[in-house]
């Protein structure tokens, strides 16, 4: 039958199906189904992430009373006051120093341990367990443990120093040392996770590459530099990003070890937010700080992705 003719009776069934309409209906159906699957996450994220985020933004433009209800709209005044405040400056400085102390050290030590633990040796499983064990210890338990280690008189570290003839140090009370002490604690705590992720990355490297290099006569460090490091660069990148974010968000160990003291030297940004909100009941300024922290982490992560993407080799 030709197309120019009027539609013959036999093909009416064929024409009654409107393909466009059916397709549209199918699209709507599949969209609804997809949304149903997403619903639990959307509800959870909405309630615990997106709502608080927007509420925080909102609050940062207000002054509040002690119960967190908004009283006066102040616009950007909270931000202006904050950037003028020397305590906030100190807090920012401490935070960045803290990130600088913890991130590279954690990653270098974890990488070292992971490379060691990746060797095929007898009883290596035991060491892998030990190296990753700090992952299973809560912040509170670890902090209390280190609180005793740092104790000025009965602490293990000072006893060793005393044994070596070095004067004991007020680890958590001396403004020069407090941040370093907290950094040491944090490095120790983060080591387990970082180690485990890096070990996983190392184990996914094809053993043929090393065998081929062995036959070519490559030495241990040559292999490390030319094969291992480039091959785990995606893992390293992930670990660096996560560790930096974690470092910016440090709270638990500060709260238990120093409460931000001495002389605000360990008053990291999250702790400062907490103090502002729940000690001083200044929810407006606390929110403003939180927003600043959010923006800093966002920028850091974007920079990393821009820089990292170029250097990282994905298979």
């Amino acid at each position: 039958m030709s197309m120019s003719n009027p539609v013959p009776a036999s093909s009416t069934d064929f024409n009654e199906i409107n393909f466009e309409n059916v397709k549209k209906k199918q699209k709507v159906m599949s969209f609804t189904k997809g949304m149903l699957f997403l619903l639990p996450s959307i509800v959870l994220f909405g309630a615990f992430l997106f709502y608080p985020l927007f509420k925080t933004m909102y609050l940062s433009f207000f002054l509040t009373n002690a119960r967190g209800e908004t009283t006066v709209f102040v616009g950007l005044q909270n931000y202006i006051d904050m950037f003028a405040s020397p305590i906030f400056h100190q807090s920012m400085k401490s935070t960045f120093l803290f990130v600088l102390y913890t991130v590279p050290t954690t990653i270098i030590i974890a990488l070292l341990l992971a490379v060691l633990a990746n060797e095929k040796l007898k009883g290596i499983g035991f060491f892998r367990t030990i190296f990753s064990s700090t992952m299973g210890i809560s912040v509170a338990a670890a902090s209390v443990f280190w609180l005793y280690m740092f104790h000025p008189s009965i602490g293990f570290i000072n006893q060793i120093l005393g044994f070596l003839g070095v004067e004991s140090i007020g680890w958590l009370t001396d403004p020069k040392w407090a941040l370093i002490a907290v950094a040491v604690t944090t490095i120790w705590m983060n080591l387990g996770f970082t180690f485990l992720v890096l070990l996983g990355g190392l184990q996914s490297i094809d053993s043929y590459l090393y065998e081929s290099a062995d036959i070519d006569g490559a030495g241990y460090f040559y292999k490390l530099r030319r094969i291992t490091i480039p091959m785990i660069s995606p893992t390293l990148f992930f670990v660096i990003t996560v560790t930096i974010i974690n470092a910016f968000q440090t709270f638990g160990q500060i709260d238990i070890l120093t409460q931000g003291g001495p002389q605000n030297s360990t008053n990291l940004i999250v702790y400062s937010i907490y103090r502002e909100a729940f000690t001083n009941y200044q929810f407006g300024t606390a929110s403003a700080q939180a927003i600043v922290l959010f923006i800093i982490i966002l920028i850091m992560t974007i920079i990393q992705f821009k820089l990292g993407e170029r250097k990282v080799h994905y298979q």
Partner: protein
Amino acid sequence: MGYIEMMDISKSYNKQSNVLNGIDLQIEKGEFFVLVGPSGSGKSTLLRMIAGLEEISGGTLKISEKIVNHLPPKDRNLSMVFQNYALYPHLTVEQNILFGLNAKKADKQIQQKRLEETAQMMGLSELLKRKPRELSGGQRQRVALARAVVSEAPLCLMDEPLSNLDAKLRANMRIEIRRLQKRLGLTMVYVTHDQVEAMTMGDRIMVLNDGIIQQVGEPIDLYNKPSNLFVATFIGSPKMNLGKAVLQDSKLIIENELTIPLEQFVNLESLENLNLVIGIRAEHMPYGDEDQQVQNVEIVNVEHLGNETLVSFEVGTELWTAKWLGQWLVQVGDRVPVHISVENMCFFDEETGDLIQEATFTHKQEVVKR
């Protein structure tokens, strides 16, 4: 004195049962030696032991008259091509090829010279700046070969290098590798599970099964005189047709179904009343003429290959395949006469599987000596 000598080499993991047993073997200089066997036969393990990637559990390994059991891979002066090529995915083709020379801190100018020569030879000159993931399978294979060539090691080991390529490319690379080996005068030890590769490439072949040497010899010898049933079925495609047989009253009875009277000039008296397994190649069962001994069989399957036709029929419990040159328009269910002659048969002991007597016919006519 061979270039590689193995004396009673064995391998076991965790001191349990051996995966390789009593391997005695000599590989000559400049030889293309193929290790062939089914998966799990220990052929790759043996190769890795030569390379130094696996510990040798027992026996002595010599390379160019020096004991090398204790030497690490880099001191054995060899190159190796792996099944998955083991290219470094983050390095360019150039860096991949030069990886070994760089590791040995070779002079930059020598590196560059050898790189150019090798790239030229392998046809990689245009691809030097690419990463492995931007290459096709065949090109990756070439890079892996180039890496072995550039080291200028006199011994090259290959572990199933062609198994990741498609059939057409594989046929090309077979020829290319073979030519490369001849041109450079390399001693090659080549592992494969593919008997076609073994037959077409090897100067000599070693068939390995369950860690035990089945037979070592030239391809034609393995084909004509398989020393046991394993080699008989492993080498050749389609595989050698086998059937249980007994010799009674000057008649050979195969699988209680075919009865073949002995021709007069065939002397098989020594086999009388033994439990035998006979083997006959597919090409030795032509369509029967009237003046010949023929067996009428019912066709159960026909495969048309264009230049030849594979015809399958049942003999007792066995499925036999005959290969007829040309195109035969026969159909499943047809009864056709097939000429099966005793003089084309290999005789094996049913119990041990060892060859008792090889085919007399092949002996006489088919091998054309140069």
